[in-house]
């Protein structure tokens, strides 16, 4: 197989989306015609019955998928029960969004004392938080709140109103500003101590 064929093969393996002939031609610095020929060669190799991975033309372009014979096994892996619970980072982010939301990523990062946050993306993917407009502060960061799926997961019948109260911290359940102020204050103190 030609080097171009190898490059197209690798691109399609590494990409998270199907790639069009035009995109493949751009990445490999070659003509659409040559890319088409490379795709033909690959389609010959990656075909049902001969390989567990099959080259297919889909909506947005070309991509590999699991063969029909292997589909059931792959579905088993993808749908495996999520045994891993929430990580410490995810739980903290979730608690802040639940008690303080709607809240922005920069504010979550500031309260947690972590420079960059990976937590929100994971929680969005799991459907536990969702976007809730934008803040009026500099840069207009996106705000997040918890979802009904979150309430189901934690068994909160009235949503965030059913969260355990914060009375022992002298905070009333409704007073978000007092909670916000306290979280920021403690975050600053931790920053100084660590």
């Amino acid at each position, binding site marked *: 197989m030609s080097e171009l064929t190898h490059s197209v093969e690798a691109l399609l393996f590494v990409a998270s989306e199907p790639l069009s002939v035009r995109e493949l031609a751009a990445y490999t610095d070659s003509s659409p015609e040559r890319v088409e020929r490379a795709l033909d060669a690959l389609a010959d190799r990656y075909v049902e019955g001969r390989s567990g991975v099959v080259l297919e033309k889909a909506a947005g372009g070309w991509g590999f998928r699991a063969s029909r014979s292997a589909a059931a096994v792959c579905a088993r892996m993808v*749908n495996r029960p999520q045994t891993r619970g929430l990580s410490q980072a995810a739980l*903290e982010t979730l608690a*802040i969004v639940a008690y303080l939301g709607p809240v922005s990523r920069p504010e979550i990062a500031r309260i947690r004392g972590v420079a960059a946050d990976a937590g929100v993306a994971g929680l969005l993917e799991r459907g536990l938080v969702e976007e809730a407009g934008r803040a009026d502060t500099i840069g207009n960061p996106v705000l997040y709140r918890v979802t009904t799926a979150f309430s189901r997961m*934690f*068994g909160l019948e009235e949503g965030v109103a059913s969260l355990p109260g914060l009375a022992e911290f002298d905070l009333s359940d409704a007073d978000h500003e007092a909670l916000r102020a306290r979280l920021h204050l*403690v975050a600053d103190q931790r920053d100084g101590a660590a």
Partner: protein
Amino acid sequence: MSVGIRRISGVTVSDLELDLDVFQGPFDLLLALVMREEIELSEVPIAEIVVAFVERMQERGEIDLDSASEFLVLIAALLEIKVRLLFPGEEDDELEELTAEQAEAELIERLIEYRRYAASARWLGDRTADLRVFRTGPAPLAPRPDPVVEAFSEDPWQLHAVIGRLLTPPPKIDISSVRRRLVPVSEFLTRFRALLRERRGFAFEEAVAGLDPISQAAAFLAILELYKAGEADPVQDELFGPIRVARGSGKAAPQPAPAETEPSQIDRAIA
């Protein structure tokens, strides 16, 4: 395996020539003398050493990252040791007093530890030449998982525990030591102004007798503030002699560097 340990001698750090009040010579020699207690570390102005190093790097017009990193490790260790010398007997075990031998052993240990990771970083760096590209997300045409969330699978008190910890300030030990260092200059401004209203002048040493060194420093800054504003006129007849503070003429003193010493800024600096 050869991992390319850097040569020991001839690094820029050891060549750094210093010209300080307490010491003239190479940085290495200063370290050695400090370790042998021939020079009081408490009298070594670490900021000036940093400035000298930065100036030297500028002169050369290039930044030698290796020696800059090593310099940072040495200076950080030196600062920490100096802090321990200045604040002996803190309740914290980690801040116990150091003998000269211990300080030296620690400094060497720090350098060895740092070099170990610097060498492993070079090992990692060599491997980045081999470009490995793979997919980290889901495959494009793969079956997608059903976004099922198990109901009642998590305990809401977990959230309470986590937010509770984010609401709990760090332990008190630190607050006490911070408070000791929080000496507002403004307090001394008020006190000295009151003194100067009652009397024509006072002796600085008497006014600050019994105070810890940091409070004395804050008091001295307050005197400088009053002098700048023309409210006080401090006189010192000889070096290290007593300072007599007289009531000022009311005319502001000439200011070489304006607005650099707002009282609030000084408060922050002292804190």
